[in-house]
């Protein structure tokens, strides 16, 4: 008898349906697997055999053929175990009366018959749902992740025995209850701007950067709180929407870094070390392509501490994803596209000794050393960083103004208002934030008053800025005007925007 069971394979963030067909014939006992299974799938034979035996079921001693369709797709990983076991049971007539059509089986088997959780469950469920499947049997360990997917019957099973009892109607498993998404519910980060001492200028830059989706660079001597400030970035970003959260969760699920809570409820903050390779940053792998740090930072912040210490090739690889918001990686196993719309925040010292430009300490670096240090960060990358701000080592004990004592939620409120203005402005275009504006949008949305325009011309004349620097200053000025709820960009907005350019002026 032939049995057909539906399972899913993962290609990037897309689930692809795979039919597992089992045929049990009379003849010399044998076990063949066809349809491009990789080693992990082939090894399932032993796991399935033991799991069946240890669940009190029979492993048919006949001529067995397992086929995976479509035959041209490489099948990888251990997620097929459960489907293979069920197909064998069905084909050997141990599941009489059970209806297995239209159910998607997912899970890895342990020798005891227990079902182990798998990576990438959520993207599979989302794809399968869009393909019209509504019934799923999944590992109990993945239940939290699946709980947020509404409109489907999802049965979490702890062991193969449970699945069999459920299917034959002896002991049905209760379907998962759908849970509502609450942003920030599983907060792990304890960062908050109220713990940052002083740094009013960097705080302001942070607010502007988040409000307009700009990338930022902090320059300053070691130990002045650059990392601490960066950690606060996700806390002032707008709360995640459910769709965003699902997309981030999909990536984290595929990469296997999803926590126990099963869904990402706060914006990711990734800090790859400066020894990171290009592959770990952008994604890659031998056959399966794993998402890299920039994809794991999707929807959140990628923080590069000590920017010039990173390998140049690694930094250069970031340029294209910074423009496109996604990365396409090609490997022998196929070509995969992962989303990578992140905010880049970087920090660096002004020179190798850290004291260049400091008012009270003397820099001991030679000009050649400083040049060499700065040259590690290429112009084109610096061009994509709209805000550059100096972080200093001043003590603020005697300062009382409210700006140095605000907490993240107050800043987030202003950010949300500025983002709302942008949402209305860019309605019906693929653009979300001011930072993504091109020349056309700049002309359309960035009205300068006549006075503002004249001042801007003077400034560019005097500071000898490039056309590209001009565009960036206008974009930042637009965001500052949005924070000010001003329709026009006023001279003061332009002046403030100019003050956030450090490395054009030197």
């Amino acid at each position, binding site marked *: 008898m032939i049995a057909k069971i539906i399972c899913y394979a993962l290609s990037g963030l897309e689930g692809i349906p795979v039919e597992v067909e089992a045929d049990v014939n009379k003849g010399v006992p044998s076990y063949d697997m066809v349809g491009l299974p990789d080693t992990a799938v082939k090894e399932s034979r032993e796991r399935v055999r033991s799991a069946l035996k240890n669940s009190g079921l029979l492993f048919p001693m006949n001529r067995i053929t397992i086929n995976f369709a479509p035959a041209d797709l490489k099948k990888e990983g251990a997620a097929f175990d459960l489907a293979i076991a069920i197909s064998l049971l069905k084909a050997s007539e141990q599941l009489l009366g059970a209806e297995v059509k239209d159910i998607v089986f997912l899970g890895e088997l342990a020798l005891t018959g227990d079902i182990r959780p798998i990576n990438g469950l959520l993207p599979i469920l989302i794809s399968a749902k869009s393909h019209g499947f509504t019934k799923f049997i999944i590992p109990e360990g993945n239940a939290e992740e699946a709980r947020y997917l509404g409109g489907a019957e999802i049965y979490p099973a702890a062991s193969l025995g449970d699945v069999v009892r459920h299917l034959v109607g002896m002991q049905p498993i209760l379907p998962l209850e759908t849970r509502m998404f609450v942003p920030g519910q599983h907060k792990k980060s304890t960062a908050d701007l109220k713990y940052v001492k002083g740094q*009013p*200028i960097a705080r*302001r830059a942070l607010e502007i950067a988040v409000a307009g989706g700009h990338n930022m660079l902090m320059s300053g001597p070691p130990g002045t709180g650059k990392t601490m400030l960066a950690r606060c970035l996700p806390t002032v970003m707008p709360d995640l929407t459910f769709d965003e959260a699902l997309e981030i969760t999909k990536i984290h699920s595929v990469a296997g870094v999803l926590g126990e809570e099963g869904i990402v409820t706060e914006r990711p903050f990734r800090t790859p070390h400066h020894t990171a390779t290009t592959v770990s940053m952008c994604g890659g792998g031998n056959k399966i392509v794993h998402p890299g740090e920039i994809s794991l930072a999707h929807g959140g912040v990628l923080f590069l501490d000590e920017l010039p210490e990173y390998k140049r090739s690694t930094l250069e690889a970031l340029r294209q994803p910074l423009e496109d918001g996604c990365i396409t990686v090609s490997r022998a196993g196929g070509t995969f596209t992962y989303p990578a719309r992140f905010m880049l925040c970087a920090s660096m010292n002004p020179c190798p000794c850290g004291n260049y430009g400091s008012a009270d300490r003397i820099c001991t670096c*030679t000009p*050649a050393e400083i040049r060499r240090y700065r040259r590690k960060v290429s112009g084109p990358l610096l061009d994509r960083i709209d805000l550059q701000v*100096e972080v*200093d080592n001043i003590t603020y004990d005697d300062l009382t103004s409210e700006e140095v004592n605000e907490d993240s939620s107050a800043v987030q409120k202003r950010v949300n208002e500025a983002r709302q203005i942008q949402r209305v402005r860019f309605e019906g275009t693929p653009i979300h934030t001011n930072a993504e504006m091109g020349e056309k949008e700049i002309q359309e949305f960035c009205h300068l008053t006549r006075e503002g325009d004249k001042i801007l011309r003077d*400034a560019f004349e005097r500071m000898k800025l490039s056309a590209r620097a001009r565009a960036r200053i206008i974009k930042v000025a637009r965001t500052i005007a949005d924070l000010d709820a001003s329709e026009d960009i006023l001279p003061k*907005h332009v*002046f403030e925007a100019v003050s956030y350019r450090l490395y054009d002026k030197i």
Partner: protein
Amino acid sequence: MYSSEEKTVIYEAAVSGNNNRAGLAAIRKGGGLRVLSKEEDDRTAAFLSMLEKKGIFLVTFLSDDYPESLKYASDPPLVLYGMGKRELLQRRKFCIVGSRITPPWAEKVGKRLSEEISEHFTVVTGLAEGGDAAAIAGALPRGNLISVLPCGIDGCYPAAHAALKERIAKEGLLLSEYPLGTGTAKFSFHARNRILAGLSEGVLVLSAGVKSGALITAGKALDYGRDVFALPYNVGISQGEGCNGLIKAGAYLVTSSADIFTVYGIEPHRTEEAATEGDESRILKYLREQGETHVAALAEALGMRIFEASAALSALEIKGLATKTGGNKYSALS
């Protein structure tokens, strides 16, 4: 184009390669000139046409436009290789130097001084980073700049300034006493400094440590009877010890270009100060009274929001009235 005497000088100093010291010394004294043989004359002509193809001209000791003041330097060069605007040699010249490690504020002050001085003088300097670069940045826009190299005129030291060198060759004047292809040696910087001092009526030192090359230029200037000017520094800043030492020894203390112009009887430079209003005026007044101040402290003292203060400061910076001195601190420029 070159007289036969000049050709003899060129042959002896640049073409023959036999380094006839006695003969060269005699030329400096106004004698020792002989008529070149046919073969020597051909070689000189070939050499000159080779230079011309490269856009290089030669100024000899006997040329009409050889700077008179340089003749009184020690061991004046018999030939100078030049690229760019030759007429600059005839103008009044003033030298601005500084060590390679010059604090950012001194670079900004130096740039402004150089800009103002270049109205009345051709600014003479080297091609290094720091003080030299500040002088170049100030004077180059007006094209009133001579840069003297410590290597052959086809070389570039530091190599990072190659593009800058090209610009000077177009808009200003490059000079070198060394044959093409000569690299730098320890002594060539000292030797170059004697030309800097020799060309100029005065020398302004923007920054100098205790053992800085800028001090050598100042020392040569004193030897030749030129005026020496220096920028004052705070006590305890090593990059300024040489400057303060010069002032102690009697150099003119310079805080504005007027300090230099009065020495030469030139009407002081007047910039009509860019108009300021409201917050900008208040901030500028505060900066002038208090000196260098952190943005946050300034905003606190004047009761402003910090980002308003940084916007106004940025406006002042664009207008050239204030400067960022590092670590988010600002000070007034005049």
